[in-house]
């Protein structure tokens, strides 16, 4: 019976394999697409990092000229934020939020696909700038008025504007989707305070995205008007103000960093209880602190602007709010410690990465509090001290959490378990390489080295640590290679995974690895937090005792047993995304015909999407 169900499923969804991936609206496949894309972009961003570190290894180096270096560090930042951490978050939102809430898919499956393709095409638009050696080169936060056409006359910042607009639209669509999914599609009995914390963090992150991205959108539109149509939003010679850009950008940019880290907080909160065999300590406080952080994150943006001279009063206010936001963040760290304390901890790769996360993120949080002490920031701002801080929270924090998530959730996604021994080695090499690369940046900050400089003279006292950091960066490169090796070899011939390899607590472990297209044969009924764990305790351990009815996909009507209708594949999302990216490309190239073609494609495809039958 189960076999027949599987066969039916295959017959319906297999056309050509590639076409089935291009037209998929299955949240699990979309999650895998995000994951694989993000990992490839991680390699690109990592290569750029190695170029930076190699150029800075010795003083007065000539490996990269100033223009190349400026493109390299700018795109390194843009890629790591928008093409790596955000899609990694999206990968896990996509794959696991529906599973964790007992749903069969997200609220808007086609829009979900559109978000992925929009992300991919926006990323390709951005990266295509390298082909003509005009990658964005004014830093990832692109301060005006350097970015106006007067001071950045090439195409570089046009790619930045259009690439980020396309990515932004894709992100806003995804945020809407996950918000509605979590609010509306929870299984019966899954009240908000019974949701896994990862789902809570996804919900909060989605709200942040919906509220923060529009500020960036507005800023980019104003920049576009300044660059293309002769307006003067940011031109002080004509009454504009470059500080306006800083406000618009950071009103987005600060919530953005919480968008980057909250999902990681959610992941850690899932992994620790499983491997400590204890429930998450202080679940309600973890929820409230997440909500507080999200709320406060809109009130701290000016801490990126303390030296712009906005004034002593705003500086004092934002120093205070920035210190305030440290409090709920600390609460989370203590609750993770409380989860571990008194547990029965299995030391494996996901657990190690989670512990590493707590350790490294704490360091990043501490340096963050130092920056909040405004006079100290007058020294630390734009120095390597800041570079240290954000790498501790973004790499030591978000990326380590993502690596942990990969090891934790790989069995469910691919039906195979990553090699744990290799994973543990990979963890230690990551930890060592990471700290070698980024801890000494605190010292360089004390020694007065500014950021974003393509070279430095000898005799500043910076030589030793720069060289040391470069060695650390190469060690990090080795660890990433090990991760890639582990993933590839496991996909090819890895050990098969059972449904519940970790004795997990949440609903994704109650279904096969990988899950059938319909996820749950019978929608689960939830009675508490840690729904799967409680079900196992009640029924004894073992595989789910649900019956497997036959499945009919698509439009077929059937009367034999239960029929689960899953949304059929569609090519409209990829076409709309292609149209959007074409508009962006046409704007960059300043060829109106291409813009017109892109818009036409979008409109026609949206029409087709709206009237597509059987959804």
């Amino acid at each position: 019976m189960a076999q027949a169900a599987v066969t039916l499923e295959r017959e319906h969804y297999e056309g050509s394999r590639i076409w089935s991936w291009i037209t998929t609206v299955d949240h699990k496949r979309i999650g895998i697409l995000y994951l694989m894309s993000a990992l490839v972009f991680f390699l690109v961003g990592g290569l750029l990092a190695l170029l930076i570190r190699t150029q800075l290894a010795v003083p007065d180096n000539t490996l990269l000229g100033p223009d190349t270096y400026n493109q390299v560090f700018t795109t390194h930042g843009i890629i790591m934020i928008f093409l790596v951490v955000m899609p990694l978050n999206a990968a896990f939102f996509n794959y696991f939020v529906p599973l964790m809430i007992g749903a069969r898919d997200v609220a808007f499956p086609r829009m979900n696909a559109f978000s992925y393709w929009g992300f991919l095409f926006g990323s390709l638009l951005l990266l295509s700038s390298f082909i003509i050696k005009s990658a964005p080169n004014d830093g990832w936060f692109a301060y005006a008025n350097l970015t106006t056409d007067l001071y950045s006359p090439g195409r570089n910042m046009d790619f930045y504007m259009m690439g980020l607009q396309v990515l932004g639209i894709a992100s806003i669509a995804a945020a809407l989707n996950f918000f509605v999914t979590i609010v509306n599609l929870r299984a019966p009995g899954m009240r908000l305070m019974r949701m896994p914390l990862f789902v809570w963090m996804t919900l909060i992150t989605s709200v942040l995205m919906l509220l923060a991205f529009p500020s960036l959108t507005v800023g980019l539109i104003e920049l576009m008007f300044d660059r293309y149509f002769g307006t003067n939003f940011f031109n002080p010679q004509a009454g504009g103000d470059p500080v306006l850009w800083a406000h618009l950008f950071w009103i987005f940019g600060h919530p953005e960093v919480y968008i980057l880290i909250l999902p990681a907080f959610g992941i850690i909160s899932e992994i620790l209880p499983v491997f400590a065999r204890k429930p998450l300590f202080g679940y309600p406080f973890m929820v409230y602190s997440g909500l507080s952080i999200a709320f406060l994150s809109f009130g701290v943006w000016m801490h990126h602007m303390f030296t712009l001279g906005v004034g002593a009063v705003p500086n004092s206010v934002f120093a205070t709010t920035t210190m305030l936001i440290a409090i709920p963040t600390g609460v989370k760290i203590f609750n993770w410690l409380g989860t571990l304390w008194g547990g029965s901890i299995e030391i494996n790769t996901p657990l190690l990465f989670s512990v590493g996360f707590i350790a490294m993120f704490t360091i990043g949080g501490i340096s963050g509090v130092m920056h909040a002490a405004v006079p100290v920031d007058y020294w630390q701002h734009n120095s390597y001290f800041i570079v240290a801080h954000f790498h501790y929270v973004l790499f030591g924090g978000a990326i380590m959490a993502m690596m942990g998530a990969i090891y934790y959730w790989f069995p469910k996604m691919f039906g195979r378990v990553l090699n744990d021994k290799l994973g543990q080695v990979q963890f230690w090499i990551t930890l060592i390489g990471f700290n070698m690369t980024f801890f000494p940046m605190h010292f360089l900050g004390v020694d007065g080295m500014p950021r974003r400089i393509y070279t430095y003279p000898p005799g500043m006292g910076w030589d030793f640590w720069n060289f040391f950091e470069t060695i650390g960066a190469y060690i990090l490169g080795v660890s990433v290679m090990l991760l890639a090796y582990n993933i590839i070899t496991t996909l090819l011939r890895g050990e098969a995974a059972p449904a519940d390899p970790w004795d997990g607590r949440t609903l994704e472990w109650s279904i096969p690895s990988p899950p059938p297209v319909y996820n749950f044969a019978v929608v689960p009924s939830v009675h508490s937090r840690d729904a799967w764990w409680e079900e196992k305790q009640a029924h004894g351990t073992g595989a789910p005792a649900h019956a497997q009815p036959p499945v009919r996909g698509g439009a077929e009507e059937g009367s034999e047993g239960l029929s689960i209708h899953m949304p059929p594949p569609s090519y409209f999302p990829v076409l709309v995304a292609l149209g959007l990216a074409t508009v962006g490309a046409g704007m960059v190239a300043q060829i109106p015909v291409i813009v017109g073609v892109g818009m036409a494609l979008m409109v026609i495809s949206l029409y087709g999407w709206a009237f597509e039958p059987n959804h």
Partner: protein
Amino acid sequence: MTGRRRYLRRWIWAALGVLPVAFLSGCSFLGAGPQSADQPHADNARLIWNLFVPIFWLSVVVFVIVEGILLVAVVRFRRRPGQPMPQPIHGNTKLEIAWTLLPALILAVIAVPTISGIATLAQNPGPSAMTIRVIGQQWWWAFEYPDTGVVVADELHVPEGQTVRLELTSRDVIHSFWVPQLAGKQDAVPGRTNFINFKADTPGEYDGQCAEFCGAQHAHMLFRVFVDTPAQFQAWVQSQEKFPATPASGTAAAAGEQLFMSGACIGCHTINGTKAQGTIGPNLTHFGSRTLIAGGVLSNTPQNLEAWIHDAPGIKPGQASAQGASPGHNQIVMPAFPNYTPDQLSQLAAYLESLK
């Protein structure tokens, strides 16, 4: 305790012992350079460092406690074979309150000197302070003394023991004026004026550089501050206010003066008392008395100067894709002068170096 566990414990203690030593050893490398912020020599930089140090030690305590608990938890509560399921503790409200209030208290303690520090640094020191205008532009710094009319570039002289008030602005994009041993940075923003006040307490030379990414040669927008004794400062001002002496006729310097005054130079540069009154590039009136040239990037030697005049864009290259765009658009403004012969270059250098 089993032998294996004892062995493991020893390694963990060793690691715990080595790591902080390894990291704190970094401290021994600190203070090594001319821009090291832990060597303050003015009230402004000192306020900053004195605020940082207690926060640092507080951080060390927090770090040791948090990381310590983490490490102890992972070691002490490792799963042992046959171990029963641990108690499913869901939380502890008293703990939650405690670890919310205690950090809040610590932060309040940090907030008080922070806000008072902001106010102190922002305070207008009043008419007793010496005002100096600092104008950032791609990629060099101009300094103007409104009281005396002195205009210089790349290097700034200030007297020890008197508060100096810098008025910062920019002619093009956002820059940032940072001389770590004397003061915290403030940005030089086009269209507005920001202020840095400091009173230096030790004569000497202090290096600084632009600290806000400002285009291709951001890395090479350097400057130097000379803190003079009051007597030295007076002497410097007096020499700057004079017109430079005309070179004796027949010398290389005189030939250089001819070349300068009949060439493109006067379109961009000012030399007081001559027909060179251009305002696009640095004022060169007492060029010969400076230690740095080219936006602080090269020492002021005839050799460097000749190379600079010959091909400034080669020494400070701009954005490649804007090749052929008008100067100033992410390209250095000073053009190359490939047509000067080596003799002409050495004459120009001789003239400029004669402007003491």
